């Protein structure tokens, strides 16, 4: 069976990559094929990487307060490239009040600080196996 491929992405100028790396390493240990973009990616670069790497899932980590720009923009670009079947989730310092509007753009889940890795694994199993 083909392994599920996951892109972990760090958008913008934010350098806080501990969470992104811990999640990338964890998903790899869970048996997923993980690609990490590295830092300082624009939404265009993230979507292009998702296309080139033919990933099934994109996980985006934002700790800079720019989530209200980044997530809708990534969702818009995925739609533009007819990649709506890619599962998108996110994490970082995202205030609870901001979450409903982001989920409404099609992001499947947002994991706030303190989320157990097991929750992310459960989420992945549920959606992509």
């Amino acid at each position, binding site marked *: 069976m083909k392994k599920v491929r996951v892109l972990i992405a760090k958008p913008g100028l934010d350098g806080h990559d501990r969470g992104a790396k*811990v999640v990338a390493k964890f998903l790899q240990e869970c048996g997923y094929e993980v690609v990490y973009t590295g830092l300082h990616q624009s939404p265009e670069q993230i979507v292009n990487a998702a296309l080139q790497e033919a990933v099934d899932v994109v996980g985006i980590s934002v700790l800079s307060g720019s989530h209200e*720009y980044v997530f809708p923009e990534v969702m818009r670009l995925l739609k533009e490239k007819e990649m709506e079947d890619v599962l998108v989730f996110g994490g970082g310092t995202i205030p609870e009040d901001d979450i409903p509007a982001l989920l409404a753009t099609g992001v499947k889940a947002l994991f706030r600080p303190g989320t157990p890795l097991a929750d992310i694994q459960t989420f992945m199993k549920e959606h992509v196996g």
Partner: protein
Amino acid sequence: MCMDRRDETLRLEAERWQVGVDKSVGKHPERKASFESLSDLPIGRLYTPRDLPGFDYVEDLGFPGQYPFTRGVQNTMYRGRLWTMRQFSGFGSAEDTNQRYKYLLDNGQTGLSVAFHFPTLKGVNSDHPLSRGEVGKCGVAIDSLRDMEVLFDGIPLDKVTTSMTVNHPAPVLLAMYLAVAKKQGASWDKVGGTVQNDPLKEFFAQKSYVWPPRESVRLLVDTMEFCAKHVPKWHPVSISGYHIREAGSTAQQELAFTLADGIAYVEAAVARGLDVDSFAPHLSFFFDAHLDFFEEIAKFRAARRLWARIMKERFGAKDPKSLWLRFHTQTAGVSLTAQQPLNNIVRTAVEAMAAVLGGTQSLHTNSFDEAEALPTEEAVTVALRTQQILAEETGVANTVDPLAGSYFVEALTNEMEKAAREYIRKIDDLGGMVAAVEAGYPQSEIIRASMEFQRAVEDGRKVIVGVNKYVKKDAKPLHLLKIDDSVERAQVARIAEVKKNRDNAAVEAALGRVRDAARGQENLMYPIVEAVGEYALLGEVCGALVDVFGAYQDPAIF
């Protein structure tokens, strides 16, 4: 002979106690099979003189203000003057932050500390494509001297000291600060403060790098040389462990990598031909205060002793001030939880007390809402009051280094120094910190430590109250500070206005001189000061340097 008999008595008493312990543990096992510190140092049941073999008061501790400075760098420490209460602050526009500074100064804060937004930290302007959504969010937006003038409007720069947290673009921000001072009529020899300007840790900790490692160290030495000549009260570098720890390192790694960065900077400055005693007294440090109370205190004490020994033994420094490790502390942002946020006030208070008992020179206490956003005025006031209560109500500042002589604290201090020395030896073997960074050594050490910590949290070996124990759904979300998009629009408009009103030919010429200096050996501070004075934008000056130095790319190791 008297000593021998005492040692023998001690041994017998210890054995007697052990018999009792075995009996107790047989009946009621201890809470855990083994106890470890937050950074996984083994922690014993009890410490006695037997844990400090060969302990020599004068050699290992000395008196405050005396080598090896384990007990503090000043003779009287906080009895003379309390630590500087310096809340790191910056958000939105320069106008917004200027108001916050005036509020903090009115409330008894004693120094300023500027938090810049990500575009400034990365050396790009607010209208750069990657700045979208980030303007003013994590700090104040500064694009040109115009913003800096607004930021310090009505704040006399010869009276207040300022710390600026910015690294690769630091020379540009320092040049802007000095230009504002000049416009206020404050002479540079009266202007005091610190610019973080610690480029190497950017590659493995904070990740706000612009150019490659070797060029970044050159710029640092340029700043050191310039400040020693023209701004003698300025600290041109704050060698920072804070971000190393926040990126997921242990306390030992934080200490070791910070001092290894310091060693690299001293070596570079000496290689430039500077006399070690001409710049070493201006070096300053910055550490994290995390939750493991005694481990942190031991870390601070070991840091002072180890640095003093390195400066004396390795670099032959003579001036006692060259041996001083003076440091700023920030409580651990990473220890704050989004869940049950009021608990963060307690965490911060304990961390702040560790910093004070560890002998910090200045302190930032985090606000309880900072796991989610920049702090509100209410939250930042509680954080400042925490320091004021420590200073003026608890009595902890009344005696110098009150924990010295504790068998536990001294043993832990020794452990810390030993662990840090081992790391420093490894880094020396790799060819020093620049080569170690290029080889990805500290990067992979930190990833390993942060993964291990996360595993310990996942399986409950490490407890975070409200996160993996005593979990309870929060009743209502906190009221948080929100930066809206109008800041970004206004900032982009101001850039256009600055470009319209300046002498663009003079800017181009000045940027040309920055490029020329970068290609040669000339100290870059001089052309940068000139370019900034012509209202060259931060992104233009950094761009000119990137033209020559190239841009650093993240190797994306995980």
